[in-house]
């Protein structure tokens, strides 16, 4: 559960019950399991209006065969980045999720599909899924591929996308991961071969009071010029979609008080850079307002390991001399049980 108060410097404060999540699980047998995750965003859903969202983020069956190979099918979380599969509010620092995990890797990214997962050797873990692709007609200059998620809602699977992740967990405190996604995403437009790929690498390291995180993500969209033409013919406006997007962040967190429940305070600082117009198709000019940098500094107080009281100050800047992005004070309350 996440409750946020966002106070930008140039707009009224907003109080939002951002996420209310219900998790379900059931074991049919020791080897056949079900997991479901239903999420209500922004507390309120009303038909035909831009309000909240009710999302089925996970609903899959796991067929547990062996340590090395297991089969999973249903609504799956894409195995990309640090946050997409690991987004309980006490797990990450800051009131809002990272910008990179919002506009470069569009968390929470979930799709219908099936695949295999398992662990091999000493601490090597993998996932490999075939899933429904993105819909390139919904891409945008500002939010990249985020709008293209089909979310398992009567998803067009005339083409199939593939995604996977390899993690190394063999050293205590260290988690390294690389992930990828590739799929033909121009199915909504005849004769458009717009393939999308995403590659990312991430690392987490925890040593005593210190926790470090780093992530890099890069997206490629082939035939972006024809995709822009196709959208312009439909809407009358060129969306100025890039052929490459990329972002990264570095975060350091320090546990100031390390005394367990009721005495746990973590301070952190995070630097992010994300550009949804990193490389443009020939003939298109990148808008500098989409090359953005963020500094987020703040603290999290844990009265219980499952309850996080968060405060941060976020400074967002772009390379554009004309567009001023807001600075904001954010306060959040997150809990999990």
């Amino acid at each position, binding site marked *: 559960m996440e409750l946020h108060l966002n106070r930008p410097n140039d707009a009224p404060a907003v109080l939002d019950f951002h996420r209310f999540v219900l*998790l379900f*699980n059931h074991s049919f047998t020791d080897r056949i399991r079900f997991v479901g995750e239903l999420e209500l965003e922004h507390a309120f859903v009303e038909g035909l209006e831009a309000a909240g969202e009710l999302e089925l983020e996970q609903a899959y069956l*796991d067929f547990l065969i062996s340590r090395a190979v297991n089969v999973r099918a249903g609504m799956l979380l894409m195995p990309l980045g640090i946050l997409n599969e*690991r987004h309980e509010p006490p797990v990450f620092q800051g009131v809002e999720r990272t910008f990179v995990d919002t506009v470069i890797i569009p968390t929470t990214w979930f799709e219908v599909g099936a695949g295999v997962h398992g662990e091999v050797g*000493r601490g090597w873990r993998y996932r490999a899924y075939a899933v429904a692709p993105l819909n390139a007609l919904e891409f945008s200059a500002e939010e990249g591929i985020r709008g293209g998620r089909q979310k398992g809602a009567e998803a067009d699977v005339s083409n199939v996308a593939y995604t996977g992740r390899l993690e190394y*967990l063999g050293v205590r405190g260290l988690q390294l991961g690389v992930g990828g996604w590739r799929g033909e995403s121009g199915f909504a437009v005849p004769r458009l071969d717009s393939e999308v790929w995403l590659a990312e690498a991430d690392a987490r390291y*925890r040593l005593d009071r210190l926790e470090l995180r780093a992530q890099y993500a890069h997206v490629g969209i082939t035939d972006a010029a024809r995709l822009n033409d196709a959208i312009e013919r439909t809407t009358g406006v060129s969306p100025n979609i890039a052929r490459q997007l990329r972002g990264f962040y570095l975060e350091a967190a320090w546990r100031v008080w390390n005394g367990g429940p009721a005495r746990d305070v973590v301070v952190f600082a995070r630097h992010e850079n994300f550009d949804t117009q990193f490389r443009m198709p020939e003939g298109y000019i990148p808008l500098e307002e989409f090359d953005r940098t963020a500094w987020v500094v703040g603290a999290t107080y844990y009265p219980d*390991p499952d309850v996080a009281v968060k405060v941060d100050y976020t400074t967002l800047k772009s390379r554009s001399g004309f567009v001023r992005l807001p600075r904001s004070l954010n306060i959040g309350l997150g809990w999990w049980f």
Partner: protein
Amino acid sequence: MISSFSIVQSLLLFLFLQSTPRIVQVEAERFDFAPSRITVAPGEEIELHLTSADTAHGFKVAGTDINVEIPKRGQGEVVVRFKADGDGPWRFECSRMCGAGHHFMRGEIVVKTPKEKDRP
């Protein structure tokens, strides 16, 4: 007299060490156990000291009666003993729903002879 006392003392110490199970520290964190693969000698008894780096987790070893709750971070540890009676392997997993990736939290206890354990 003194030397035979020392021999008895050493023998008792040897027997004590032989009967004391090896301690294995296991840390649970969303969504993995570290280590997730524990190697034991045939018939060896080990003592698992289980802690959490975040929320409460479960620790269940399939095919045994071991199924305990690991307390939340900062709330101590739970200790269980496991004896490798058989060839294994024994699968273990988190038995308490701990988040979106709960079902990734699995591991195994494998039996290897000392020679096999030395191999990379």
